[in-house]
């Protein structure tokens, strides 16, 4: 009969409409910003720099090796090495800028970093009326503590900590072995 297809379709619409009053499965929207969904642990958007301990400058893991700068597909990272008065590199970044208006959040910088110094942040309410300055993150804006990293990605951060600790122990052991080997020769 003509019209049954339309009526059947209307039944589906009615089911969804009436169902949304009592079935949570059919009520799929939330009233942002009053209601918020929990952020997923793996969620990523923009990079930040991790520092150990309490001092952001001394504990910074970044050694300004510029690996992320060369690998960044969008070329949004700019790094300058800090040099002492004699011109010797201090293995610290003097300038570390990320233009997050260009960054596409691909996290290739995180994957290529040999020092686990750069990780992905989860800030997303960063809309601004100024087109340039607030979106060009300087070194001071980017450095965040390891605790903050733990609060974002707990599982991943624990793995990174364990790996770094193992590396440190290995280095200490190697240094001790070297010192031990050197002692009899000196003595």
């Amino acid at each position, binding site marked *: 009969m*003509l*019209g*049954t*297809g*339309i009526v*059947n*379709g209307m*039944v*589906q*619409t009615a089911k*969804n409409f009436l169902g949304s009053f009592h079935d949570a499965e059919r009520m*799929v929207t939330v009233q942002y910003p009053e209601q918020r969904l929990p952020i*997923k*642990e*793996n*969620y*990523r958007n923009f990079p930040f720099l991790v520092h150990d301990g309490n001092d952001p400058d001394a504990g910074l893991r970044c050694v300004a090796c510029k*690996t992320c700068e060369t*690998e*960044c*597909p969008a070329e949004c990272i700019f790094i300058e090495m800090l040099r002492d008065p004699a011109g010797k590199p201090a293995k610290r970044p003097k300038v570390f800028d990320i233009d997050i208006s260009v960054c*596409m*959040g*691909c*996290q*290739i910088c995180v*994957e*290529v970093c040999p020092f686990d110094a750069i990780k*992905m942040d989860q800030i997303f309410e960063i809309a601004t009326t100024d087109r340039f300055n607030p979106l060009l993150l300087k070194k001071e804006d980017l450095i965040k503590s390891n605790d903050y990293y733990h609060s974002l990605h707990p599982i991943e951060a624990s793995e990174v900590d364990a790996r770094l600790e193992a590396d440190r122990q290995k280095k200490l052991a190697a240094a001790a072995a070297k010192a031990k080997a050197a002692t009899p020769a000196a003595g």
Partner: protein
Amino acid sequence: MTLSLQGQPLGTSTRLLDGEADGSILEVSMGPHHPSTHGVFRMNVALDGETVVKLKPVFGYLHRNHEKIAESISYLGSIPYSDRLDYFCSMTNNWAYVLSVEKLGGFAVPERAEYIRVIVAEMTRLLNHGCLIGFLAQDLGAMGTPLMYAFRQREKILDLFEALTGARMMCNYMRFGGVRVDLSPEWLQAVRKLVDEYPAFIDELEALLSENEILKPRLQEVGVLSRELAVQAGVTGPGLRASGVPYDIRKVDGYGVYPRLQFRVPIGEHGDCYDRYMIRLLEMRESLVLLKQALDQIPAGPFTNPQIKLRNLRPKAGEAYGRIEAPKGELGFYLISDGKGEPYRYRVRPPSLINLTPLEDMCLGQNIADVVAILGSIDIVLGEVDR
């Protein structure tokens, strides 16, 4: 009056008609911001009354220099850019690109990674086809309802992608010789739940649309693409199968672990818009069959090949063409390496662009309102057409 291409070399003008129209033929520019063009696509249509007598597609408004950028950055850096080709299906774009690099370098892929790729690619097919049907109904005037139902379902898949990769649409998930992160058992459980619930959505969509007395005359016998023309124009994907050609690269090439999985390839009969709509529904059901098998068979083991280094990848000089059955058709990447860190030539074979080529033949003699239905049933994404 005569219709000609201006007496000028092709491509120098976007106008269709010579001189002033005398009133019997009207030239209309549909797009680039017409809502039915799925982005920034423009068609110059010459109309006799309501009938289309000539049509010229004009594109390039979304050109982003994708291929040239890829030739200036490392092999790794192109993976996130390939996400942005067809922004609905970032997983299959990734797969096609890493497949061609794996062919170029001769890299092996662990079995678990192949299964992970099948799972995410079939989920991509589900969300793409569901949304396409929603968009098609939206273009025909069903404001919102089917599209929002499709989006509700797509949201569940995107949530899973986000939990796995960290991003909803720009997943950047695959790597040469594997994938970036491993699946967790909880994630697999969530996919199982999705697969169990999905048929209810397809049934709902079918009850809503398939027998609808308004939708059927708008789609049936509209925009018929003959078998011969489809093959000659190089159309691939659901559009080709709707015209009755049994050609599916998952079967033909048997890349990944598809040869081990049982699935059927739905074939259309008439090649009209309704067949193209129906093929999508049937393919979603086959995707569910594939997903079920892949979820049952996925082995334990490494998810990436540790011998392939991430940075400074320099495949030996040579060329490779890797192609997969993306939801929209054959997506291929042609790469030439000269031994350096970036490809010498990087060429994308985009299904959206090539499926558009017989657009004029499908539209001639139809009403202007049918152009919208025909374009909607082809399934294009302008990010891929213009690159």
